């Protein structure tokens, strides 16, 4: 099914030999002039692109001191070289984090440092050229901004931040990724990444209600735009469209139903994801985030809960306060915002909902830590809650759980291979290959524990693994959300002793 070699599943992650240019031909589809214009970028590359490029880069260096520091402090120790899933699976040295950074660092030296200005190539400085631009377009879209390399960097250099800055510079000279910009345009004009208008959303929610009714005999509602509800749920729009995402949506609805709370979704903020972050564009990130903020205020809710989406959680948890101000109108007695796993686990612990683990006895489960949750945020109030809370919840919902190898989970988790704005079909080769380290770790627990349910709390991870599992000979149905397990196990109906 593939016109490239799919890595063999051996259970081992072996550092490959270097093959320069192994993935040099793989680039994202460009956004056309119309789309570029719609999202406020120049329609196309102009003759004076170098001037614009350096102006934007200068702006970024002034505004984001972190980027400048990251460009200055690398000592080329090499600790990052074998930490990127794309390097480990392609052998292309340009996928080593230090080289990826070097694509920007060499330009920085040439135009922003004295030694580079004076000594040029001798000081590892590079002039802007069409060739360099092609390398940027290629390799800054072969980074999923997962930040695994930064965990191992003794200086904490964050390649993701450099990638984001690079994409922002490319956009500013008229070179954009069709996939990312189409999504941003839909989120800002229609309300979600899918481009699903309100009536279609309501139709889908009616369908999900019908499904739950048929399967359980219980009338579980999925309310939309209900003013005065206690809770606003913000979730990735994939939850309204794709499998297995939709099964987690059923799970959330059952949890709210059984907890007896009033909740609502919003057609204005029918998307948790925020692709503004992936392209490093502050204004788009702010605009997309504001929809959530506005929806919460307009619907007069007391709490905002985020569904299973990795980068949505990062933006809400880490950036929302500084983008659009604090959610100071929400009830401070609860975590603001709160992750759905935190919310559900709390209900289980209080005994407010009951889970029947035997409902998941057909499954042997493992958990994949999604990068934006694992390395860029926290869940709950304790350090490391983003690792313990999802696992506690899984263990409350099923009898058989096993973790993958320690060096591949927690803060050292491997990316799914499709995060950070690369979840698009023209990049399928790097997506399939990039998943290799995770697939090897999975292979080991499949062999040792018969794992057949790969639990996730990220819409991108779900879509990515559903797509690439078959390349590795694994059924796509083995991918699922934590709230899919919760939805299977939750005991609906009258509560005992309440």
């Amino acid at each position, binding site marked *: 099914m593939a016109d490239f070699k799919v890595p063999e599943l051996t259970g081992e992650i072996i550092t490959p030999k270097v093959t320069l240019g192994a993935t040099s031909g793989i680039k994202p589809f460009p956004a056309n002039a119309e789309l570029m214009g719609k999202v406020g970028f120049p329609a196309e590359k102009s003759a004076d692109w170098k001037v614009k490029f350096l102006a934007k880069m200068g702006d970024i260096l002034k505004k984001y001191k972190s980027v400048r520091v990251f460009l200055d402090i690398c000592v080329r120790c090499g600790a990052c070289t074998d930490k990127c899933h794309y390097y480990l699976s392609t052998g292309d040295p340009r996928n080593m984090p230090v080289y990826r950074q070097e694509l920007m660092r060499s330009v920085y030296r040439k135009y922003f440092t004295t030694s580079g200005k004076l000594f040029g190539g001798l000081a590892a400085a590079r002039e802007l050229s069409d060739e360099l631009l092609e390398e940027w377009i290629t390799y800054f879209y072969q980074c999923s901004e997962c930040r695994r390399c930064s965990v191992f960097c003794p200086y904490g250099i964050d390649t993701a931040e450099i990638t984001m800055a690079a994409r922002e510079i490319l956009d500013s000279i008229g070179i954009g990724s069709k996939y990312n910009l189409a999504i941003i345009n839909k989120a800002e004009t229609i309300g979600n*990444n899918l*481009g699903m208008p309100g009536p279609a959303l309501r139709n889908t929610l009616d369908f999900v209600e019908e499904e739950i009714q048929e399967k359980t005999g219980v009338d579980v509602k999925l309310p939309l735009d209900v003013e005065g509800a206690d809770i606003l749920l913000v979730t990735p729009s994939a939850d309204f*469209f794709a499998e297995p995402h939709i099964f987690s949506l059923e799970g959330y609805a059952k949890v709210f139903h059984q907890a007896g709370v009033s909740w609502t979704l919003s057609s204005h903020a029918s998307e948790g994801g925020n692709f503004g972050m992936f392209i490093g564009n502050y204004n788009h990130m702010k605009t997309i985030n504001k929809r959530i903020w506005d929806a919460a205020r307009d619907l007069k809710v007391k709490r905002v809960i985020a569904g299973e989406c990795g980068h949505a959680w990062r933006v809400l948890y880490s950036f929302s306060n500084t983008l659009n101000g604090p959610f100071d109108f929400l009830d401070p007695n609860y975590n603001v915002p709160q992750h759905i796993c935190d919310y559900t686990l709390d209900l289980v612990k209080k005994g407010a909902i009951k889970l029947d683990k035997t409902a998941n006895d057909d499954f042997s489960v493992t958990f994949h830590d999604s990068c934006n949750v694992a390395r860029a945020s926290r869940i709950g109030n304790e350090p490391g809650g983003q690792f313990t809370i999802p696992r506690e919840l899984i263990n409350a919902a099923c009898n058989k759980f096993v973790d993958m190898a320690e060096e591949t989970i927690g803060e050292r988790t491997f990316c799914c291979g499709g995060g950070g704005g690369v979840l698009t079909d023209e990049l399928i080769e790097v997506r399939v290959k990039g998943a290799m380290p995770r697939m090897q770790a999975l292979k080991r627990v499949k062999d040792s524990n018969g794992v057949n349910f790969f639990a996730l709390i990220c819409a991108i991870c779900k879509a990515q693994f559903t797509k690439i599992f078959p390349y590795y000979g694994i059924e796509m149905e083995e991918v699922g959300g934590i709230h899919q397990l919760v939805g299977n196990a939750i005991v609906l109906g009258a509560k005992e002793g309440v």
Partner: protein
Amino acid sequence: MPTMEFEGKTYEVDEEGYLMDWSLWNEGIAAEMAKQDNLELSDAHWEVIRFLRDYFEKYQIAPMIKILTKELAKKYGKEKGNTKYLYELYPAGPAKQACRYAGLPKPTGCV
């Protein structure tokens, strides 16, 4: 911009062959796209394409697969109401192939 020729007319398509303007679609275009994939459209294929068109015209988006399979089961019999059946008709997948033949844009997002 890539294009597709049909009956003397030129239609704009995207890099993956999806029609750029869904309103220009006609049944002949679907048949032509299928022909290029060495596929002949049967009544069963058309049942899917027509439902996708109707749903899109009403909601401006393709239905999720489950809505499609349930509708097929309701209208044409239980044996047609599953994803496996859809993949038999459209080996490249219902979204990639059936939506494309129906002239619908490719779904975007984390799907």
